[in-house]
């Protein structure tokens, strides 16, 4: 049983109330959308890649406060990372960056990890298509 008011954690509330990098990148190199409204959360992350590194990241999220905070902090975390590094992006980093999350909210950072990986995979797929054509 958890009575902790972790939901109200300062870092979570800061990212929830003042989310960073909201929206879509108009000239995105990769977009990842994961989750479904029917299971509670939808997260979309778009990235711009320059010289093999993520130069910009934006998000849109339908979900609870923690899901929005996780998305926001994720866009900050992945910026500057190489594509290879981003493919290893872990939900634990998201939790840590938000000061730790209760077990009941652990699906939020997992969704963020999946969204980043989906965006990077989308980028790689587009690169392959470009090379072939």
């Amino acid at each position, binding site marked *: 049983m958890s009575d902790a008011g972790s939901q109200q954690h300062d870092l979570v509330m800061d990212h929830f109330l003042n989310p960073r990098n909201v929206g879509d990148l108009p000239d995105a190199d990769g977009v990842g959308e994961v989750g479904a409204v029917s299971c*509670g959360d939808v997260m979309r992350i778009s990235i711009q890649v320059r010289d093999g590194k993520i130069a910009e990241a934006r998000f849109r999220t*339908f979900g609870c406060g923690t899901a929005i905070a996780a998305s926001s902090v994720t866009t900050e975390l992945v910026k500057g990372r190489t594509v290879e590094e981003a493919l290893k992006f872990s939900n634990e980093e998201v939790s840590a960056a938000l000061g730790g999350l209760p077990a009941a909210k652990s699906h939020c950072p997992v969704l963020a990890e999946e969204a980043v990986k989906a965006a990077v995979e989308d980028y790689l797929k587009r690169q392959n298509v470009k090379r072939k054509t």
Partner: protein
Amino acid sequence: MPSVYLDHQAATPLLPEAFEAMRPFFGEAFGSASSLHQHGLRARDALAEAREQMAAFINAESADDIIFTSDGTESANLAVKGVAYANQRRGNHIVVSATEHPSLLGSVEFLEKQGFTSTKVKVNSEGFVNPEDVRAALTDKTILVAVHHANHDIGTIEPVRAIGEIVAERGVPFYVDAEASAGWLTVDVRALNATLLSFSPHKFYGPKGVGVLYRNRRARLDGVLHGGVQEGGRRAGTENIPAIVGAGVAAEVAARDLMQRAAHSARLQRRLWEGLKARVLHLKLNGPEPGPRRLSTNVNLSAEFVEGEGLLLMLDARGIAVASGTSCVSKSLKVSHVLSAIGLDHSLGQAAILLTLGKDNTDADIDYVLETVPQVVSKLRGMSPAWDEFQRGAVKSAIRN
């Protein structure tokens, strides 16, 4: 920053006069009602007076029909299990509506593991039970029918009087959960043909820690807590005298002020719903339109493309306290069983928030909510991929009017 409390379904502030009446029972009048000495006598007198106040509040024939419990959940467990166990030689079938409180449905599910069976009567898209569906569900094995007076989530006022007549004709015990309605609607156990009825004074300015279960003393009821003679042996355990005393005062005041409170909340309810409807596009009211078929305190809304818990937290950050119809605690469906039962689309169910008015809410409160909710919804929609898709014409609105 203004502070607007719109979660009276969860808790209400204690009436000052109830608090004053309770105070001696934390101090010099600390005795237990089971003690034979003078300290016990004072507690017994207080208990007897509160029992009379509760009987008067619901028009019960006798104070002997009142059982004090700890809260609504305990009352529902005692009513459902107590009637089922006491009548198991007569039958094993229970009829409930699909939108009852979880404490009631959970008790029924517990009994099903022990050989009892149940029929969950469906509700329509506004949450109404059709009395004829209750009649059709009755069998010669039916030992209990339970339909709530009003729904805790969407405020639907059920046709309990008509259902009570049908059930009474068959001589089956009828349990009415009046947790959401008591204090805001007249509750009359005789007019409703209720065999059992429960309510909690903390929903109308009494203290937490006490629930009330009415049981017609001619109806069979087994206890669930054993090992004591309190409450006629049907609820063993030391009575929470201070809370019971405060609850009695709250019931008296609620009966006195009922019409005024109901009219006040009904007026604010209309302002709130009409105002939000005019200011927020793609907004759905869940449950019946404000009026005689809906609790005057209840406004349950879905702002499409926004998730309810996020909306709740952002409103809280602006000083507005509401409840959300969903709770995001696992990666599973999070929609309340009531919203599922009325057939609400999942995306709208995820969006639901519950605003419940009280006697102390003001027009200024409503003004602030009407100003703030559109801003917060717009901010959250700005982050929502579903809203973005809707704007681009990729998805359609799920609201059908």
